[in-house]
């Protein structure tokens, strides 16, 4: 089993810098929830791990998988990892399955080309097993179905099945339930995490919902404006968030049982644009606890331990 380390990942498109500095570590067999508002660079980070960024993206930083650098790999080596060691499922299952091929075909090709199973009977047997594993009732009847004949929830199960068919060590799930009905969202998430446990794989779970991630994941990474701001155990994040942004996020969270009349406490101001040059802390413009140093200097942190990117947590307020 392999560890994933992302160190100072930055992604640029010309003048835009949507991913400025992302760091985290995901140990084998663990789950990490990546939480952040829309546009914070979660999907780009995930695509960078898959090596699926658009050609014009300029990437810097270090992506290390099981001690090997993903960036220095040849395209061939990269492809051996992609889909086989690291698999990914996407947000909208209705557009992510190929409309011209059957469910069976799309799973079969993974078993044939990625796992190298020669016998087609064997592949069918394995494929049906996997469809059963992801909770599809009567898999034989679905094998020859086309994606448009499935509901959203069923499609996402098929997408999970084809990602898991290659027995990956790490699964990246980029907002896998946002496009689905509320009623099936939780079912899919529970399925995902139970499969993770059963297979002992690592899971990188991208979401904008801090409470869901906190409930399901081992660790949480909070992202903002293309930076990772805080990385901590899920329990710690929910109970005692360290970074002012995480604190604000939690305060803005709707409370269970709270009356509908409750006002959400929103964070004033807006997220800096990807093209903006930021010298100090990325959150400074909206931070209630900001002080003079915050706009001059960027708070530092290190990637391998739990961290939070704020001067306050380091008791550095007085220095300088």
């Amino acid at each position: 089993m392999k560890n994933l380390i992302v160190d100072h990942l930055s992604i640029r498109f010309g003048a835009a810098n949507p991913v400025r500095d992302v760091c985290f570590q995901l140990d084998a067999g663990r789950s990490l929830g990546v939480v952040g508002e829309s546009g914070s660079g979660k999907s780009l980070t995930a695509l960078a791990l898959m090596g699926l960024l658009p050609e014009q993206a300029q990437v810097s930083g270090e992506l290390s998988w099981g001690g090997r650098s993903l960036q220095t790999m040849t395209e061939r080596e990269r492809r051996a990892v992609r889909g086989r060691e690291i698999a990914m499922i996407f947000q909208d299952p209705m557009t992510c399955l190929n409309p011209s091929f059957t469910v069976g075909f799309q799973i079969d090709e993974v078993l044939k080309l990625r796992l190298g199973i020669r016998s087609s009977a064997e592949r069918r047997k394995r494929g049906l097993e996997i469809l059963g594993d992801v909770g599809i009732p009567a898999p034989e009847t679905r094998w020859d179905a086309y994606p448009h004949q499935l509901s959203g929830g069923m499609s996402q199960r098929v997408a999970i099945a084809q990602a898991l068919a290659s027995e990956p060590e790490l699964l990246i799930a980029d907002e896998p339930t946002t496009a689905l009905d509320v009623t099936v969202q939780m079912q899919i998430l529970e399925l995902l995490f139970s499969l993770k446990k059963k297979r002992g794989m690592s899971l990188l779970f991208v979401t904008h919902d801090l409470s869901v991630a906190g409930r399901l994941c081992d660790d949480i990474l909070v992202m903002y404006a293309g930076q990772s701001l805080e990385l901590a155990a899920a329990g710690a994040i929910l109970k005692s968030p360290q970074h002012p942004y995480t604190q604000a996020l939690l305060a803005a969270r709707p409370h269970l049982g709270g009356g509908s009349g409750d006002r959400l406490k929103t964070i004033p101001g807006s997220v800096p644009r990807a093209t903006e040059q930021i010298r100090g802390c990325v959150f400074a413009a909206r931070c209630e606890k900001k002080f003079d140093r915050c706009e001059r200097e960027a708070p530092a942190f290190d990637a391998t331990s739990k961290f939070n990117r704020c001067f306050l947590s380091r008791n550095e307020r007085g220095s300088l």
Partner: protein
Amino acid sequence: MVQILFTEWSCNLILKTASRRLFEIGLTLLGVSLVAFFLIRMVPGDPVTLMIGERGASPEAIAELKARLGLDRSLIEQYGLFAAGAVRGDLGVSILSGRPVLGEFLERFAATSELGVLALILATIAGVGLGIVAALTRGRWLDRVSMSLAVTLYSMPIFWWGLMAIVLFSVKLAWLPVSGRIAVEYDVPLKSGWLLIDCWMMEAAWGEKVAAFWSALRHLTLPVIVLATVPLAVIARMTRSSLLEVIGEDYVRTARAKGLSPMRVIGLHALRNALIPVVTVVGLMLGTILTGAILTETIFSWPGLGRWLVSAVQSRDYPVIQGGVLLVAVIVVTTSLIVDLLSFWISPRLRDRGRS
């Protein structure tokens, strides 16, 4: 994929679609027969005067000839006779040659279809290939060159371009023959009507068969290329834009995320979907090919439908015109029906939409 075609419900669907289309086809053919029948009779001059022409003849002789050809009856009566015959499959005989229209048509159609089918195959293969190359090199020079080529080909008047091709390749360079289907020294008995096939079936030594085939192929080269240019350009542009659109789709990203080879991602997952609108365009090009064939046949003295109909119009050979045009319509309509069913068949989504 064959299995898909024969699953019960898709068979039902195909039958249902076919029967609805059959009704439309009936209406179309009725319209075409009316237009073909009346339009040529509105053109000044009639076959009898043109036949007897300058030689002059007594009014009695003219009247007798008209009566023999049925031209003395009222127009309504004439149309009724034509339509009744057509339904039975009898289109009458040519005034000029005295031979049955259907037989002449089939003979001429063989020549035209050999030209048209080869042109369509060439246009499809080269057009799809060019479109793929352009899409994969989008924005780079190869894309620019192939797409400007497509625009150039598309806007070249077929008459001018055919003559230029003859002047360059046949006259100046003497690489290819100027006209006709095969060199005069080969006498190939027609069986299928396609010389490329028939020359293997004639009673002759191997050497002669090969030589006849080669000659037929050389005669086909220029007209096929000239006829294929416009459809080729249209198909290439359609393939390029369709493939570019599909490459941006989520399911293509999924195919990449599965770690499949670029060959498989583009050549199977993307192309399979990109070709759905291309099939429709190829179907539309059938009509373009048939009209283009009339010009091409005139330029290359190709003994096909085009030349047959043009000379029939010149001599006001009514049965040939009305029967020939009707038969051409039958062919266009059937092939477009086949293309429709084909595009249903290659798109699972369309197949289901058509079912409900």
